């Protein structure tokens, strides 16, 4: 077992990083005085990981879309009981989520932390599927897919990804489709489980007023050592250009909704924090609430307070996105495009840059206020493969205006963007 303390001078905070003999990376951040304890057990397995191989496989295998999410649902069912029933005995609140590039199992508790941790480590390492239980889940997941079919926010986002990407599985709903989940059976679930739930591919993150030695002692007893199978997951080759520059769908909404995304080159895990930080700052400076463009669009009634932006980045994908409600999304696209071109030529002004930097730094400090957000930051760092939860704060503190201007030039290509629009149904 290898143990190190990761500390940060800027914030005065620290946590422990352990590389456990089982292959699992464990990150523990002790917060004094909090009643809440939060733990996440995550694997680098999300909806995009549909083509993969390990050292045991002769060649790459491709599986149906939606398996990662399906597996998440099924792991909650033990042979003899439901995991929620187990947590109920400790008073913990358990949950799980699957995203594009990860699956995480988590719990929050105030009392009985160690018994709750035992439950988490035990059930995630103990899959139990039969053809009958797998079939039964298809009904529930089918209903979940249909529930999201009624969400315009979800649709405007996935229509954007379908427009941006030709082949990358990020364009498919995380839960898959009713057709793809119909192909899932117990054998496939076991195959994916054995591939991605190898402890070398997983991270345990914990924050709260906890006892580190006690945690490691539980880990020693419950973690099942496994061999590193040198997992490789690939995405199909993706053209540099967007598939469609415009996508539209009608829906039961009152005001048109839009997502505008710029197709941008994905980056490795080593660079993803820096590139995402710079991209976030460029978005803030372009169209954040302190920008000239925001004021023009807002005063002109072209956007409202529902406006937002984000950098959608992960394993094999990278897209700066602007979204919200607008009566004229095409005009917003045109004006943002003009502003991008102007700023590429002129650069952002230094004073606005300093304000954006302070703003960003403050939001990160706020994130250190609760065990939930701290543990989430830890699991993000662990699953990125760096284990450095302070890297975001440091990248923000060290970002320069020149870096942000350079990011704007490379990541906001107005000729390589997609506008996704949801329009109200015409009665």
């Amino acid at each position, binding site marked *: 077992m290898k143990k190190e303390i990761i500390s940060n001078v800027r914030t005065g905070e620290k946590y422990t990083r352990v590389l456990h003999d089982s292959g699992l990376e464990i990150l523990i951040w002790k917060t004094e005085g909090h009643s809440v304890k939060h733990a996440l057990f995550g694997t680098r397995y999300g909806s995009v990981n549909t083509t993969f191989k390990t050292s045991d496989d002769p060649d790459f295998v491709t599986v149906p879309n939606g398996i990662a999410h399906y597996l998440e649902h099924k792991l909650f069912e033990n042979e003899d009981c439901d995991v929620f029933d187990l947590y109920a005995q400790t008073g913990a609140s358990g949950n799980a989520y699957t995203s594009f590039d990860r699956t995480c199992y988590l719990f929050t508790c105030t009392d009985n932390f160690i018994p709750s941790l035992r439950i988490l480590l035990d059930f995630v390492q103990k899959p139990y599927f039969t053809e009958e239980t797998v079939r*039964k889940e298809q009904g529930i997941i089918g*209903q979940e897919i249909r529930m999201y079919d009624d969400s315009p926010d979800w649709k405007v986002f996935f229509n954007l990804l379908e427009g941006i990407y030709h082949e990358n599985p990020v364009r498919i709903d995380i839960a898959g489709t009713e057709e793809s989940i119909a192909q899932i059976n117990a054998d496939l679930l076991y195959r994916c489980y054995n591939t991605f739930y190898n402890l070398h591919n997983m991270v345990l993150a914990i924050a709260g007023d906890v006892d580190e030695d006690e945690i490691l002692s539980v880990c020693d007893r419950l973690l099942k050592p496994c061999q590193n199978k040198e997992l490789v997951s690939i995405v199909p080759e993706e053209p540099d250009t967007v598939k469609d520059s415009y996508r539209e769908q009608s829906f039961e909404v009152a005001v048109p909704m839009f997502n505008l995304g710029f197709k941008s080159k994905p980056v490795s895990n080593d660079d993803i924090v820096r590139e995402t930080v710079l991209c976030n700052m460029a978005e803030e400076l372009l169209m954040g609430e302190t920008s000239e463009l*925001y004021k023009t669009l807002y005063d002109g009634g072209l956007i409202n307070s529902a406006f937002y932006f984000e950098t959608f980045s992960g394993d094999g994908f990278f897209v700066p996105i602007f979204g919200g409600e607008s009566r004229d999304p095409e005009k917003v696209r045109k004006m943002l495009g003009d502003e991008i071109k102007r700023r590429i030529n002129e650069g952002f002004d230094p004073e606005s840059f300093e304000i954006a930097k302070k703003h960003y730094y*403050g939001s990160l400090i706020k994130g250190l206020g609760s065990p939930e957000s701290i543990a989430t930051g830890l699991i993000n760092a662990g699953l990125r493969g760096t284990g450095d939860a302070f890297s975001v704060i440091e990248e923000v503190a060290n970002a320069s205006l020149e870096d942000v201007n350079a990011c704007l030039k490379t990541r906001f290509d107005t000729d390589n963007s997609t506008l996704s629009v949801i329009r109200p149904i015409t009665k």
Partner: protein
Amino acid sequence: MTNRKRTEIGKGIGLTVLTDPKFKTNGIVINLVCRHTKETAAANAAVAFMIEDTCKKYPTVTEFNRRLGMLYGASVHTGISRHTDSVQITAAASCIADKYALNGEDITRQTAELLTECLFEPVTELVNGEECFPEKQFQLKKQELIDDIDADINDKRGYALKNAGRIIYEGEPAGIALKGERSEAMALTAAEVYKAYKNILRTARIEIVCVGCEISPQCEKHITDRFSAMDRGEIYEPVNSTSPAKPEPVSKTDRLEVAQSKMVMAYKTTQTDYAVSKLFNALLGGTPFSMLFKSVREKLSLCYYCSASVSRKKGVIYIDSGVESANIEPAKNEIMKQVEMAANGEFTDELLDKTKLLLTCALKSVFDSPKAAADWVSDGYLDEDIFTPEEAAERINAVTREQICDYGRSLKLDTVYVLTGKED
């Protein structure tokens, strides 16, 4: 350890200061509670929009947000919510604790100043000698309010609950649309909304909570000085009454382009005990091991979600579910069966104990979050129903099986609302 003190700093104005070194942020929450009527709903909602992101000192959204940026990304926001039969307008600010400032600034006091400027010094103009919100800014905010009302349809679950609420609380303040109806928002004028603003300041019951790592005496003095100088009239006192059950249950179905139907069932009672209502609700449908979750979703696969929530002071339990159209009747029958089973005591002691454990553990976390702590304290003083989370946990642990059954037997089905697809 959380330190807490409350003082009356003006007529109908309470200020509570809560500090705990574990917090990384400081926050100020100002809750203004007013009478909720059909005539004032839209105007009060518009006030929340008007005072959110500008003030006399920083009169444009850009200048205002640049100021927030300088305060290390401090945030100021306003909101509108129900407080049982009343409406609550909230103006709140949050910032990082002063010790994290890179250049030693007293961020909290400056953020408090910005928040009070929003509330007391909004941008105005003179129209025929009368002070009023500026017409151009007002028109933008009015459109935003209308868009916000229109956007309710985007979230089908919330939309179904909103429509069900009109039927459940017909004729009561709680049945009046929170932000008013679209037509009422459309008819608003800048003068009318400014009048509503002045009326809120004069008559609202106000609870202020400063919560965080450390609230400096200067910051507390600033808030005390601003609020104690207010010109106050007759103060509104929040009233709470249980919702009368209808003689016969009312059923209504609305149709919309939806893939999954939503069903809201409401039961009513005259019992409002905190611990019993919370525990009954959680046992029936408030946890992932509740009776409804286990039967309706897990065993019978009738719904993707089926959960219960309680409006304690109104004596209403809502059960809302996302259900396939073909399963609406079976789901409804199963929900009614589970309510009856709960009333008959057909649940295990183990389930009761597990539910108590979950609720009491959750209560221990209230003072871990500045926002949750502020809400807890403010609600307690507004309702004159003051107890600590520890006392709440004791009350829940003391609830007996017989009290649960008695509560269940007092429930009467009042409303069944369904939002379903057009093709059916």
